[in-house]
């Protein structure tokens, strides 16, 4: 199967208490299209940093990342924004829905940023919301719906562009157990229905268990959990 993410010798350090702390140390990773990957590790191990670098929201100190055949390591900011819009979808721990826009508009936003006309983008958003089971919440504002519904809307927003990879950073961290379980089931359904590639960061083993391939990040080193 086609390799969708290729990470070669990736390094990233932070300054902490006047000392350089290497959180990612010569990491190599290959992800194939349709894979469901989980990345585990203790707090502060650099999981989110790794996810943000793959998501082109952060830059590595050295190494190379190729996503969907494009080397994004030294891509200018304007091109990166366009790249994110076409190839990457984010699901954060917190919903981060824009409060001035309805759920439909929030979901449609990535399409509109990409240049799709509003009526068409809203129509697609309604279809996605219907698929996610929250179609009746489309005209509501984020403050008017529950946490689980918000997170489903965020998944819709991440999916609407049919991205090559969907990055999720502790997606159930802010949900109760039941809602969290539903969210994970939804992820699996999406993977199955759309052959969607998932890259999920979590510190919870039970959540990681739904992934096809599990990785552990510790002391800057990435290792596969067998």
């Amino acid at each position, binding site marked *: 199967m086609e390799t969708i993410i290729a990470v070669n010798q990736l390094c990233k350090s932070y300054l902490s208490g006047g000392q350089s702390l290497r959180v990612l140390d010569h990491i190599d990773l290959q992800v194939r299209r349709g894979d469901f990957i989980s990345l585990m590790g203790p707090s502060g191990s650099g999981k989110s940093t790794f996810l*943000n670098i793959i*998501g082109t*929201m*952060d830059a590595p100190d050295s190494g190379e990342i190729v996503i969907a055949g494009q080397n994004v390591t030294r891509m200018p*900011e*304007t091109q990166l*924004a*366009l790249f*994110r*819009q*076409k190839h990457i979808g*984010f699901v*954060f721990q*917190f919903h*981060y829905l*824009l*409060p*001035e*826009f309805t759920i439909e508009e929030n979901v449609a*936003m*990535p399409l*509109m*940023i*990409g*240049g*799709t*006309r*509003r009526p068409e983008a809203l129509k697609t958003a309604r279809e996605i919301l219907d698929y996610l089971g929250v179609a009746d919440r489309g005209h509501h504002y984020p403050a008017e719906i529950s946490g689980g519904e918000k997170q489903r809307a965020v998944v819709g*927003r991440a999916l609407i562009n049919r991205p090559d990879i969907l990055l999720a950073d502790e997606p159930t961290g802010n949900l109760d157990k039941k809602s969290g379980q539903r969210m994970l089931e939804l992820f699996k359904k999406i993977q199955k229905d759309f052959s969607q590639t998932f890259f999920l960061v979590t510190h919870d083993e039970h959540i990681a268990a739904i992934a096809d391939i599990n990785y552990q990040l510790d002391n800057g080193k990435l290792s596969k959990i067998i």
Partner: protein
Amino acid sequence: MNKQKSYINFIVKRYFASRKKVKMISTTSVITIIGTFLGTFAIIAALSVMNGFRDMVFQRTRNMSPALTFYVKNTPEETQDNLLKELRESPDFSVATPTLERKMLISAGKYQQLAFIKGIRPEEYEGIMNIRPYLQEKQALTDDLAQTLFPEILLGLSLANRIGVSVGDTVTLVSLLDIRNYTAPSIRCVVRDLFNVTVFDYDYRAYMHLLDMQYLLDEPAYHQIETELVREKMLPLVQKDWQSRVPESLRVANWWEEHLELFSAMQIEKIATFLVLCLVILLAGFNLIASLVMLLLEKKWEIGILQSMGCASRDAYRIYFRLGWYTGGLGMMLGLISALLLLLIQQYFPFFVMPGAEDVYIFRYVPVIVNFWDVLFTVLVVSLLISLASLLPARRAARIRPLEAIRTKQ
């Protein structure tokens, strides 16, 4: 409209409408809108009223001035006569009349004042100077001296007030510049009427019959030949033509050149007014910066999320730049529309009465002339100030890094 622009405008409109929810931002935004509204309104209104006044001064100055004046003082009498004859025969001119002018001491009782006195041929001069509307008793100078007992004089109201005389009183003219054998020539005149043009230059002047003045100065020659044109629009061409036909030493000046200082002063006053009123817009500009920066702090994480979805830095710049324009532009448009509406009504269907103006200026309503170029220039300057004020928050928005912005919400 391209597709990118439509999504930016969609966000801008929603942000603009939502600001009322944040009290402090809402207050500064309202102050900005009021500031640009008042500033734009005040600038256009002030310039239009100044245009109205200037036009009134132009009209009055033109009514009282010859189109072209030939300064013949230092030329021989024969040259003066030939030129006068030539001008009268020329198809360019409807009137050509000789005049004398001298600064003299005018006195009545214990009051004295130096003033310009002009000697004219009353009937001929009516073709040059339309003074009748400004005469208090509507009594012009008598053309036929045989019908008068004493020399007559018309005094500007300011001059008359200065020496404390009114219609029918007697004044004495003394030409101090013509002192010979320790005596200055003088003449007593009856005040025929007073005029009030409300232009300082004129209301300190006086007019008398040319023959009386020639007698007083013992000078048979003229100082000027004043003319009116058949076609006013031909003034620059006629002036150029006649300047080339007369001796080089003989100056030919048009009415505009004769009052250049006054008109320049009025223009400078207009520019100064414009600059002072721009300060109102400047103040609104600072408010705009404050409200946009506050909004940016409030919504920094939203820009970060938009960037994670593919919104480029230049689009974040555009969002805040346009947000500035929505706020400042709204005030400017309201100011522009209301100013044009009110001023054009005042210009064509005057309704706003200027208290006491009828007595002082001989007009009842505030004079207004809306000038297209003034309006355009005002809009351009206000637009420039709004753009400059929007620039700082927009540049800050463009510098936002998505990760850092999203973390501000956590």
